[in-house]
């Protein structure tokens, strides 16, 4: 069993990858993928921290299960919105949707 730090490091790297994707990419689908990577990073964090030599923490596992369900719902909603956006704008480029500009 490798140490906890590897998993925490992996979670951190995933988190950074997710943030990078959100900050850089223009396509909406890519943005949603970035969100999903972020969620997965968080889950990895929870599970890694709940596995100790003294025992397993069931509370953290339960949170993760619920979070997986919620995450799926969020992505489903985002995808349906994407569909509508595509129909309205004809493009998936986020930088073309600037109606909230000052």
């Amino acid at each position, binding site marked *: *069993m*490798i140490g906890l730090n*590897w*998993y925490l490091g*992996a979670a951190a*790297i*995933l988190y950074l*990858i*997710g943030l*990078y*994707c959100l900050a850089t*990419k*223009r*396509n909406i*689908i*890519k943005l*949603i*993928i*970035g969100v*999903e*990577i972020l969620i*997965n990073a968080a*889950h*990895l964090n929870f*599970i*890694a921290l*709940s*596995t100790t030599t003294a025992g*397993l923490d069931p509370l953290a*596992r339960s949170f*993760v*299960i619920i979070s*997986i*369900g919620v*995450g*799926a719902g969020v*992505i*489903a909603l985002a*995808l*349906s919105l*994407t*569909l509508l956006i*595509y129909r309205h704008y004809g493009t*998936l480029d986020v930088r073309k949707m600037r109606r909230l500009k000052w």
Partner: protein
Amino acid sequence: MGLEFIIEVALIGFLILFAILAVELKKLAYAVVSLGLMSTVLSIIFYVLYAPYVAVINLLVYAGAVIVLFLAVLSLMSPGEERKKEETKYDITARVSGGVLFIIIAILMVQVLIASYISLHFIYGEALNLPVLKPFQNILENVAQSVWQVRIIDVLIQAMALFVAGLGVATLFRRERGEKE
């Protein structure tokens, strides 16, 4: 140290690799497939970390339902790419990744079916003495327990959805190649 260490480090490496691929691939369908692979690797990591229930649910949800959703949405929108000007250069990669995905899904489905079969035995208290399954006994028992304790019907529906997903992915790639030609 030893085998366990290599396996776990490799798993983490694959995780990060698939994540970077998911972010960077230009063709959206490939990115989505890479995301699915990442989720699968994550499930395996969960399983290694003594969280079988979480692993199974993660697999079912992310590597199953969400990927299907993505692909369904992508199929409704014509630009399968991030930017229109790019052309599809990764045919071989498409076939390989499609194939890998299909195999993984197949293994999972088989595992689910076997687990259900074994768990039926568990429920009815009969022992199962299949010599070929002996080295996988523990894994199978764990998976069976987590799957059976959730709901068997949901599991069967998930299995069907996964099967459809596999077929759909294959169809998707076939259509793309068809368009090019």
